[in-house]
């Protein structure tokens, strides 16, 4: 080890070995000695031996340790004393400079504050996202069971689910499991007396759930609450909604018009940062009684979310292996063959960031969004720092005398660097104050925008404070380094001779390249914004292949009269133009299934979407039949075995003449025949290419998730709506009307993209603003630099426009260069992003031209003020000898 610094003499006396100084003390002394190790350690050791031979070991050891501490006060004093004195001076000068150059300081601080504010907002957001599910006491030992599927459905291969029979098996046969519990989510209709709501956050759960998750009960006993069938717990919010001041305990809730549940307790509303939220928690034994099945035999239905709490030392990979082996014995072979590949366990902390699995209880965040936000805010901070660097060096001309003087009276370069770093740190500190104000103002907006409850108080944690201090320090140092280096390099001789060489070529190019970088970033963001906007507009206006305007979708759940009579009655209203029904479209993709067809090989498989519709479905939506015929009442068997496929399905199967061929969906029917082929239409999101679709005719069933589509006239929509509401109270008295507009729900499919588009445009505005600040500052500087030159030119007869051209030419050139660099980068980024859509716009010349024009226009505008001022200045003033 280097610390001993010894030369091996080959023979160390035994006496020398025995009389070594205390090791720990020696090590500490070594560290404290920095570069003077050999001298100090050697001398101290030498004297140690002398003292030891005179006064004995103990006294020598004490002396040695004393040697470590003695010089410390001196060091501290000698280092800090002068620093402290100078610090005061630096501070005064820094403040004075800020006050003197108000405009420039404000520009700087505003820029830095914007960058810092973005960073702080992102920090708050990230901190909240990472706090999801962390409040459970054993959060790092909780896992969820997941499944990998064989064939991708909707292009996702992972599924949140496990068989019903899994939980009882786990605690018995797997020692590494402390406990396990399953949740089944089932939207249900809940009624208390005459208050009823369709509740979507209705879960069934095992009583062990309380041992795994932190779910405090305000009323009731967690140990017994979920044991008996038909007992239920409600959240505080539900308690106030249904019961107001009444005592909920012991009351009965009527669920789905079929079962009665007794309220056994009230639990605290689940915090926002949890991956699941429930309003009702019923005992899972009730669920199994409802469906009339024994839990132990439930190995084919994967609709249950199983959570496991492991022991501390559990071997998880071993567990995965064992559980897969075990389950294969119970899961029916066909399921294993066609659907399920294997099981795996997912840690609780990952759930929130992972949105690629089917069957999530709620939509989670996407970790890519977090990266995106971080990257954007980092870019903005970078731009702001570049601004500071640019402006500081541009103004350096005004500090030359001060620097020269300081150097003459004995400042070393190091000290001057420290001084200017201190100035930038001070600016950073003030900017930080402003940024906190900005954050205060914009936090509510940001928070409601990304739909999360963010609060200022999230910044009070220890690690957050560190991050904030870190931001100030890093910003201050990073922005301050370059100006400090430049300013400290001035030679006093040159300064007082009146000509300072700023190494003009080199530093000028550097500063220009900073502005170019800012513009590149801004142009890229402009391109991103424009393309996003175009894509969204394209999606919104794209012909989906069916009629989507003025269509209302109403849930047909619980409709009492027959569909035909309802249809007849509603059509009496002149505003209701047409009615049909279907069990879903893009908002609720009917079901996904395997199918059988004529000429199918044994191991060929096709997954199609299937919807069951009413007679006039095809006509209602203006779909086009390209082969064969529509469903018709003329053919009585249509009701039982007719299918209409879309073109993609026919292509996938590979038929030349699909009409009349046998086809049916597994598990639905036993036989079927293709009677028609419909032209492909986008029944799902434009993210995906059109999938195979099989449409069959089915009578309307009030309890089968059938949805009624109404075409209404565009006038008097609110009248029509109230008419429908009134009627629905008669048709379906037990169930409140549930409706939405078709184009609203289509829009909602693309909400993520809309958000993205808005984010891009906002941040583009900020980035452009900052780039303009930088350019503005640079323009001021250049104009001032060239006042003499301009004065002379004017005297020699140059006109104002020609001077303007002269001044702007430089900048135009740089903006042009920035554009050239930014175009390919922006194009690549957006091209990547567009890949996530199966149907997309092209990035056309319009985008590029727009970006170029915009950047040029902004640049010229920024520069123009200074340019005009300089060009119209009186040459007499600028050439006057002061």
């Amino acid at each position, binding site marked *: 080890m280097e610390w001993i610094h010894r*030369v091996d003499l080959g023979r*160390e006396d035994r006496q*020398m070995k025995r009389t070594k100084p205390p090791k720990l003390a020696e090590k500490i002394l070594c560290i404290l000695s920095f570069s*003077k190790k050999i001298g*100090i350690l*050697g001398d*101290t050791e030498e004297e140690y031996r002398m003292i030891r031979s005179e006064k004995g070991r103990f006294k020598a050891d004490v002396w040695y340790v004393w*040697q470590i501490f003695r*010089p410390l006060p*001196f060091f501290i004093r000698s280092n800090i004393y002068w620093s402290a004195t100078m610090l005061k001076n630096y501070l005064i000068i820094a403040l004075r400079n800020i006050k003197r150059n108000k405009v420039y300081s404000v520009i700087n601080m505003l820029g830095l504050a914007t960058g810092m504010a973005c960073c702080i907002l992102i920090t708050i957001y990230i901190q909240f996202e990472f706090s999801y599910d962390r409040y459970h006491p054993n959060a790092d030992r909780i896992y969820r069971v997941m499944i990998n599927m064989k064939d991708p459905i909707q292009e996702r291969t992972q599924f949140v689910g496990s068989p019903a029979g899994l939980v009882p098996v786990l605690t018995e046969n797997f020692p590494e499991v402390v406990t396990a519990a399953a949740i089944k989510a089932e939207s249900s209709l809940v009624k208390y007396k005459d208050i009823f709501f369709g509740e979507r956050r209705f879960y069934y759960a095992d009583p062990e759930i309380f041992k795994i998750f932190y779910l405090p009960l305000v009323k009731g006993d967690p140990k017994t609450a979920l044991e008996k069938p038909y007992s239920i717990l409600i959240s505080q919010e539900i308690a106030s909604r249904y019961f107001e001041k009444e005592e909920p305990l012991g009351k009965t809730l009527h669920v789905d018009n079929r079962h009665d549940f007794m309220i056994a307790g009230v639990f605290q509303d689940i915090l926002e940062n949890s991956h699941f939220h429930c309003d009702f928690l019923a005992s899972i034994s009730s669920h199994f009684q409802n469906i009339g099945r024994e839990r132990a035999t439930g190995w084919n239905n994967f609709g249950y979310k199983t959570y496991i709490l492991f022991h501390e030392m559990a071997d998880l990979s071993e567990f995965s292996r064992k559980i897969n082996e075990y389950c294969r014995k119970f899961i029916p072979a066909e399921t294993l063959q066609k659907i399920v590949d294997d099981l795996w366990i997912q840690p609780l902390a990952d759930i929130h960031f992972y949105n690629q699995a089917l069957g999530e209880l709620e939509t989670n965040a996407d970790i890519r969004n977090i990266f995106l936000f971080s990257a954007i805010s980092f870019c903005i901070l970078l731009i702001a720092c570049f601004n500071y660097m640019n402006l500081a060096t541009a103004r350096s001309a005004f500090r030359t005398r001060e620097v020269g003087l300081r150097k003459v009276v004995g400042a070393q370069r190091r000290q001057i660097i420290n001084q200017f770093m201190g100035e930038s740190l001070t600016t950073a500190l003030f900017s930080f104050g402003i940024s906190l104000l900005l954050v205060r103002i914009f936090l509510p907006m940001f928070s409601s925008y990304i739909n999360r409850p963010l609060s200022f108080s999230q910044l009070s944690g220890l690690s957050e404070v560190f991050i904030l201090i870190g931001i100030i320090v890093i910003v201050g140092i990073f922005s301050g380094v370059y100006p400090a280096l430049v300013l400290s390099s001035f030679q006093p001789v040159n300064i007082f001779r009146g000509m300072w060489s700023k190494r003009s070529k080199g530093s000028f190019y550097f500063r220009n390249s900073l502005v170019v970088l800012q513009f590149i970033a801004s142009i890229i963001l402009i391109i991103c914004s424009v393309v996003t906007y175009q894509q969204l507009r394209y999606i919104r206006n794209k012909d989906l292949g069916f009629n989507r305007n003025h269509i209302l979708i109403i849930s047909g759940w619980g409709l009492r009269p027959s569909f035909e009579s309802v249809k007849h009655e509603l059509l009496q209203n002149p505003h209701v133009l047409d009615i049909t029904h279907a069990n879903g479209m893009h908002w609720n993709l009917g079901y996904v299934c395997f199918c059988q067809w004529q000429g199918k090989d044994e191991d060929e498989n096709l997954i199609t979407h299937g919807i069951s519709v009413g007679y006039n479905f095809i006509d209602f939506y203006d779909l086009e039949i390209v082969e064969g015929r529509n469903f018709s009442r003329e053919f009585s068997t249509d009701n039982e075995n007719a299918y209409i496929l879309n073109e993609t399905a026919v292509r996938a199967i590979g038929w030349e003449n699909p009409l009349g061929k046998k086809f049916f969906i597994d598990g639905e029917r036993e036989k079927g025949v293709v009677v028609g082929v419909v032209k492909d239409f986008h029944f799902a999101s434009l993210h995906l290419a059109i999938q195979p679709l099989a449409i069959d005719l089915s009578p309307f069933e009030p309890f089968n998730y059938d949805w009624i589509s109404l075409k209404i006239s565009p006038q008097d929509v609110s009248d029509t709506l109230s008419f429908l509401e009134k009627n629905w109270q008669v048709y379906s008295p037990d169930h409140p009307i549930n409706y939405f507009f078709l184009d609203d729900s289509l829009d909602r499919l693309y909400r993520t993209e809309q958000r993205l588009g808005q984010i891009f445009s906002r941040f583009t505005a900020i980035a452009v603003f900052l780039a303009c600040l930088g350019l503005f500052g640079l323009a001021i500087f250049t104009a001032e630099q060239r006042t003499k030159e301009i004065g002379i030119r004017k005297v020699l007869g140059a006109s104002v426009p020609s001077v303007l051209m002269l001044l702007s030419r430089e900048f135009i050139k740089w903006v042009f260069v920035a554009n050239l660099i930014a175009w390919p980068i922006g194009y690549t980024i957006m091209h990547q992003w567009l890949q996530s859509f199966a149907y997309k716009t092209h990035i056309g010349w319009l985008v590029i031209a727009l970006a170029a024009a915009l950047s040029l226009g902004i640049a010229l505008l920024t520069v123009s003020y200074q340019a005009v001022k300089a060009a119209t200045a009186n040459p007499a003033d600028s050439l006057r000898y002061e």
Partner: protein
Amino acid sequence: MKELTKAEETLLIAILRLKDNAYGVAIKQQIQKATGKSLPYGTLYFILEQLTKKGYVKRFTGEPKPERGGRSRIYYALTSEGSRALEHAYKMQQKIWNGYTELTWGEKTGK
């Protein structure tokens, strides 16, 4: 000419006196003998570094010695700059303190 601090002065004189034997332990003992102050090695070397930076002393590395745990001794010697600085300091001292004994004589004897 930059003025010497008191500590620097003391050190330079000690090095002067020790001639060829001016290394850590010896300098420390010399100062102890002359001023009665026990200067820790940290301080000592700090000042020696400053003197070296100013160019008043030169540094030599000696032979490794077993009683130093195998490390070598580092010797310091005055440079010509250093001697000039000392000379200057001595002259300044003389000028300032000239007639000190006479000044205090009166007070000591009460006249």
